[in-house]
């Protein structure tokens, strides 16, 4: 399978920070591949996601290279990369109609007029399984539940048909049942569109059910990466093993 994305020696240091947030990461992602990035607070997993999407603050210093062999132009967030954040309450504009927020991404990235972009937005709201998408397009974020808001954020992330969807703890603020629904939606969308996925999570159980491959991060470094089957059955590091043991499932 051809590589979509390649990271070589990637490092990030935030302005004023004593230590690097991310150091020496070599990682490749194939087109259509589903990669889970797992780690605890301070592991660098969100920094990795933001570095790939070009969302780091300007003052952050970046080392190493991020290349996109799978694209013939530099990757742009919104067009080539869709990004879903943890808190849809803060990623959606509270005073802009929901349909317009999805349409704006299409208008800005697909060279599409507003009328067509708004029509496309309604299609996308339907695709993320929101009820009455035409009416919902005229509603505002405060009228929706957390799970519904995250569906709108996902619609905005995929409207320009990106090659890569990055979900950064996109389900961790949701309750268990809604989380499972959003994971099922993400799984269906990446499969249907052949999108690659980077699923950033602290929950190895959730990740293992979604990803082809898992990369485990700790203190800014990648400690292990393997296919999901290999990592779950035969973790090579004590840290990965500890994360697997700490997973609290329902089976004895």
């Amino acid at each position, binding site marked *: 399978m051809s590589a979509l994305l390649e990271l070589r020696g990637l490092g990030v240091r935030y302005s004023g920070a004593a230590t690097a947030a991310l150091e020496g990461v070599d990682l490749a992602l194939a087109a259509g591949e589903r990669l889970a990035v797992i780690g605890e607070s301070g592991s660098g997993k969100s920094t990795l996601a933001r570095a790939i999407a070009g969302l780091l603050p300007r003052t952050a210093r970046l080392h190493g290279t991020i290349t996109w062999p799978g694209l013939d132009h530099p990757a742009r967030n919104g067009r080539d990369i869709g990004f879903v954040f943890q808190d849809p309450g803060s990623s959606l504009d509270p005073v802009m109609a929901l349909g317009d927020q999805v349409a704006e991404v299409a208008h800005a990235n697909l060279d599409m007029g507003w009328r067509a972009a708004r029509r496309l937005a309604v299609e996308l709201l339907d695709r993320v399984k929101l009820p009455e998408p035409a009416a919902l397009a005229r509603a505002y974020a405060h009228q929706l539940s957390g799970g519904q808001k995250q569906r709108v954020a996902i619609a905005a992330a995929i409207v320009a048909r990106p090659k890569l969807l990055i979900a950064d703890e996109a389900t961790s603020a949701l*309750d268990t049942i809604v989380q499972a629904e959003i994971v099922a939606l993400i799984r269906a969308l990446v499969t249907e569109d052949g999108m690659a996925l980077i699923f950033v999570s602290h929950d190895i159980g959730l990740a293992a059910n979604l990803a082809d491959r898992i990369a485990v991060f700790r203190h800014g470094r990648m400690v292990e990466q393997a296919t*999901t089957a290999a990592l779950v059955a035969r973790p090579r590091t004590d840290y990965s093993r500890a994360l697997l043991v700490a*997973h*609290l499932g329902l089976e004895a």
Partner: protein
Amino acid sequence: MSALLDVQGLSKRYRRGDKEFAALDGVSFSIASGETLALVGPSGSGKSTVARILLRLVEPDGGGARFDGEDLLALRGAALRAIRPKLQMVFQDPLAAFNPRAAVARLIDDPLRIHGIAGRAARPGAIAALLERVGLAPELAGRRVHEISGGQRQRVAIARAIATRPRLIVLDEAVAALDVLVRGDILRLLMELQAEEGIAYLFISHDLGAVRAIAHRIAIMDGGRVVEQGEARAVIAAPASAIGRALVAATPELPKFRETAS
């Protein structure tokens, strides 16, 4: 055995615009001394409203609660203050619950002083002992809340809760914001404290994995009602309610791979 806490028919209605809706609709359950009851349900099912009523932060519209032989919801003034030390609370986010600039020592000193648990001279020693009790170094007493890690903060919150030798601690999503390895440590600490001191817990959570690890019994809530309750492992193995089945189905399980997988 008589229950430590016996909740009968709690109801609470809120108004939203000109519509009324029932946040709680006849909720009943009981907790014995030294027992953990998990209150489980999706967002909006009424779990936190139950906690707020028991802590007397919200007045219910109906129903009652007997705690340690007293009519909890009828207590006022001095009688209510007298029962507070026996009923403590740990929240999801101690950084939001505490003054972030307060020193750790001050947070633990407050309950000791306010409830007259230890005299002025004895309090530094009592604070050090409580910190050690929850697995923290006594030197942490001088640090400020915002300077310590999330796991350390939750240990401080537990130290503060146990300072008054409570009979019951309400744990409202108390491990939900913690890293997975820290979550395991805090669950173990809670179980140790319970074994040694016989504290009962009302463990409010939507995380069935954590519930299965710590709870003896479960009450599952949906739409302001308890739809199912029973022994924890039995309910998880064979939930009778639709919401119980949905919660079990939604809890991620590590996939099984054969050793030969690569």
